């Protein structure tokens, strides 16, 4: 038996892989594809999986093809990309803080983005791009503040980051409520719609910035994964292995915040995915730390499943996807924690 499983490709390229992670990844891809087909078939006109696939490959009738490709596919692609972004962001953050609670949706980034968006919606009467810019600025400012306050003598501990982040999350939630309370009713309604995180009415125009953001950020996740494997052993050990610890940490925080930001801008703050996906992926793969690729796939599957459920459970009044991820993710996490406590592996 080899100490590490590696796939050797030509030209000196060799990648470390875990057989179990590949199997889990394959299952997640199949589940995601099935959910995507189901999601595209869901709506005012119900389409069978066969009809969906025909329309996707260009063999359907023009009407169905229009519904599938132009009306429903962007929504599904948005769900997948947002799920990937949240999954990776959560995995990076949880690995960095060595704590499942160290998720961007717990430590205030999403709440900061919400305040930014609400300031634009309720005080500046802004819409569209302006709301996105507000969300980006809010999330970024909170991230910078949390990071700077968590620094102590040139080092940042994961624990401090989480505690300060949670404090900021409460502060931002209070600000959100204040902004909603003093806003005009119509603005408050618009703000609430944004706050729930929704995939309704997404078009290819919404997909483009999200896809572009991921195209830039995801390649950075590869070196990030390498740095994380060293940082997991503790700052001193990572130092000994030749990692510039604080520089790596700034880069990782920036990557995680960037990922959660592009997702939030595209679909609003979808709750719980960044927290839950890495934990589910970690347990499925039995990896020592949240695995990046499987967390991304789990995130995509979670958002897709939540969206399908959100549309199907009460077809007359579809709930926003964010409400559904909150409910599904929360239940699953509670179940996982109960199971692991009972078996003594909390």
């Amino acid at each position, binding site marked *: 038996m080899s100490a590490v499983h590696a796939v050797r490709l030509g030209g000196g390229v*060799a990648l470390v892989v875990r057989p179990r992670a590949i199997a889990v990844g394959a299952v997640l891809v199949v589940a995601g594809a099935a959910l995507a087909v189901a999601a595209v078939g869901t709506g005012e006109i119900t389409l069978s999986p066969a009809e969906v696939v025909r329309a996707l490959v260009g063999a359907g009738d023009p009407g169905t093809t229009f519904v599938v490709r132009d009306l429903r596919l962007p929504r599904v692609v948005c769900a997948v990309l947002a799920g990937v972004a949240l999954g990776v962001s959560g995995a990076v953050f949880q690995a960095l803080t060595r704590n499942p609670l160290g998720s961007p949706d717990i430590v205030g980034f999403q709440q900061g983005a919400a305040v930014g968006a609400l300031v634009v919606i309720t005080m500046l009467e802004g819409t569209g791009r302006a709301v996105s810019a507000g969300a980006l600025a809010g999330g970024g400012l909170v991230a910078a503040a949390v990071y700077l306050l968590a620094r102590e003598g040139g080092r940042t501990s994961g624990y401090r980051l989480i505690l300060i982040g949670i404090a900021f999350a409460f502060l931002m939630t209070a600000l959100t409520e204040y902004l909603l309370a003093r806003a005009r009713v119509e603005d408050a309604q618009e703000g609430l719609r944004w706050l729930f995180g929704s995939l309704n009415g997404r078009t290819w125009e919404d997909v483009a910035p999200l896809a572009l953001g991921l195209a830039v950020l995801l390649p950075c996740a590869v070196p990030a994964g*390498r740095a994380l494997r060293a940082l997991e052993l503790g*700052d001193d050990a990572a130092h000994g292995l030749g990692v510039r610890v604080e520089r790596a940490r700034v880069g990782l925080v920036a990557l995680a915040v960037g990922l959660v930001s592009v997702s939030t801008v595209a679909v609003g703050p979808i709750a719980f995915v960044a927290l839950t996906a890495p934990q589910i992926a970690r347990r499925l793969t039995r990896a020592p730390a949240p695995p990046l690729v499987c967390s991304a796939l789990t995130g995509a599957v979670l958002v897709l499943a939540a969206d399908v459920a959100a549309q199907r459970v009460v077809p007359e009044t579809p709930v926003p996807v964010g409400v559904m991820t909150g409910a599904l993710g929360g239940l699953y996490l509670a179940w996982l924690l109960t199971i692991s406590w009972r078996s003594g592996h909390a």
Partner: protein
Amino acid sequence: MTDASLCAERLTLGYDGRTVATELSVAIPDGGFTAIVGPNACGKSTLLRALARMLAPRAGRVLLDGVEIRQRPTKEVARRLGLLPQTATAPDGIVVADLVARGRHPYQRLLRQWSQEDERAVREAMRRTGVDDLAGRPVDELSGGQRQRVWLAMALAQETSLLLLDEPTTFLDIAHQLEVLELCADLHAAGRTLVAVLHDLNHACRYATHLVAMRDGAIVAQGAPADIVDAELVAAVFGLNCLVVPCPATGAPMVVPCDRRGASVLVEDPVA
């Protein structure tokens, strides 16, 4: 004096606003087993941190192969100097072979994550430390002694000629302390240069070839144990009234504390 690839020149060290040590100059003899000893909070771990480039000195410099260590690329240093820190944490459920393999980090690149060389180094490190039978076991299920051997294996897999160990025997029972020190002695005998912060002066005298004795952030004495360790030094460093006798097993200096209740001293002048 022998050659020293790693040395410190007039270091002032501290954390935040607090100065811990001043004017520290040490030369780590190549091929030696250097032990840094002294009472709690005397700055011995701080000195090790500075030697391992983890702490930037306020003044003075640390030289590795004649070049200031913090000027060299940290990854290059990591192939020259390995470190076993006090605070390393194993990720939940990680298995031994996986943890030892992390020691290959300084040799790996994005697309060349695992080579035959890495495989060989990891096997060799596990064999040397006697953890090859544990390869597939989760690290958190091991005993303290086994775990420390696994961390040593990780540091060994880094294949550096210099190895720095921060209190490698703390929290271990006496048998496991000796097991780890014997392992260190083997590594030293195989040609590695070792630097360890040790709590137990008798262990240091028994295994190290060179001592650096510190107190209150200053170096009190450095040299071979047999040359520098006597009752006077122990009194100066630890404030302890004691006899220093040759160890019956090895002949190395051995510290025997005097009876504080004033009972008669059985051996009048054991060294004579």
